[in-house]
């Protein structure tokens, strides 16, 4: 049986891992390789690195650290940040990333998803969606969320975009529910469940994890394939081995990590 995945997310800025609250006020959490190795040892199933200022600054991911991570890490990792073309994606994949994730650039030019899927296969192509509920009750997409001064609210409805992204060749969707991001009050189960109903590729929950129960709810109630979190792991508030034992206790299939070296 396929295990559900626990995915620490490392936001990268200027070569270091940072974390904000509701996408603002970033503080430095540590060095990239050091944190990546720590999570690997603790049993993370996959890692995601977001070069959060790449897209707002109009540049692609810095490949040097991708290669550094690829050399030492023996679990899969995904890289996101300002990837705007097949050539930029190829450079990141050749540097050793297993998947690339596109967000703002795919909103700028949706055909990018088709091009990436044709070049590398859908299994490499993750579409990240930043979503917030507007006053009229609709979930809509946000763009350039890495820099609050540049963040744009789009008219595009989150679920419409999710359907289109899959049609174009997304092999996985990461749904960042911005209303719950960094505040540790739980994943947005209502939004995730609505997404699950139309999402036929793996769906990853993001934004809001604070307690082990939140992970359980995302897996059990919203049937997500993976749960992504940052601050609770960086701060040590939740340890991955204990989290996995807890989730296993609820019958959620998890990969066990043995101590052998």
């Amino acid at each position, binding site marked *: 049986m*396929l295990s559900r995945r626990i995915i620490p997310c490392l936001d990268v800025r200027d070569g270091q891992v940072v974390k904000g609250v509701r996408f603002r006020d970033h503080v430095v959490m540590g060095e990239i390789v050091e944190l990546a190795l720590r999570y690997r040892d603790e049993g993370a199933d996959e890692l995601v690195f977001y070069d959060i200022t790449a897209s707002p600054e109009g540049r692609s991911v810095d490949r040097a650290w991708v290669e550094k991570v690829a050399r030492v890490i*023996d679990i899969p990792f995904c890289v996101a940040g300002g990837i705007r073309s097949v050539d930029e994606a190829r450079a990141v994949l050749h540097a050793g990333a297993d998947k690339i994730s596109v967000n703002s650039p795919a909103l700028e030019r949706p055909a990018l998803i088709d091009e990436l899927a044709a*070049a590398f296969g859908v299994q*490499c192509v993750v579409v990240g969606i930043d979503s917030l509920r507007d006053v009229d009750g609709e979930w809509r997409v946000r763009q350039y969320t890495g820099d609050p001064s540049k963040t744009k609210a789009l008219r595009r409805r989150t679920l419409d975009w999710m359907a289109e992204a899959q049609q174009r060749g997304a092999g996985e969707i990461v749904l960042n529910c911005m209303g719950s991001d960094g505040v540790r009050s739980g994943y947005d189960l209502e939004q995730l469940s609505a997404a699950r109903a139309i999402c036929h590729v793996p769906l990853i929950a993001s934004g809001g994890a604070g307690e082990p129960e939140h992970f359980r709810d995302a897996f059990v109630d919203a049937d997500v394939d993976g749960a992504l979190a940052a601050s609770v792991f960086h701060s040590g508030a939740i340890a991955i081995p204990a989290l996995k034992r807890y989730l296993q206790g609820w019958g959620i299939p998890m990969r066990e990590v043995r101590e052998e070296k």
Partner: protein
Amino acid sequence: MSVVLVDAGGTNIGSVRYALQRLGVDAALTADAATIRAADKVVLPGVGAAGPGMARLRELDLVELLRSLTQPVLGVCLGMQLLCAHSEEGDVACLGLIPAPVRRFTGAPGLRVPHMGWNRVTARREHPLLAGLGDDEQAYFVHSYAVPTGDWTLASSDYGEPFSAVIARDNFHGMQFHPERSAVVGAKLLKNFLDL
């Protein structure tokens, strides 16, 4: 020992190379026929689609060369599928070194395609490639097409239906999962291949 990675344009070549480096082997990346023929071990990595993968091997004029190899060969993910007879992905004839078909996962509620993540690998036969593989080990898979179980199956996995996780015939071997990204288990299986 000389190990070569066949540079057929797969995007996971870098990660496979690093994984071999972690095992102390510096594998050369090559598309040169003489270098490949002279190697002790040949690894065919691959990520992408079967059609472009075969087209690339033809462009490099490596099809007959790969078919004629007698040293241990390991195909990883798409590389494994290219060793098989035929792939439904683009309806292409593959290298035909292992007489197995490659079929698309049908998918079902709760069975998302691609099959992506860690899944259990169960040994079906005794084989040196599987030495030390425990009863409950998981490896990392990312694929939409799979090889059904058959005579060629050394180890299987299950995603709605059983499918081949590790296959072999004569000197040709394949792993559907990514040993280079399967932590301790993956390193063990790669080491086993190097020890064949």
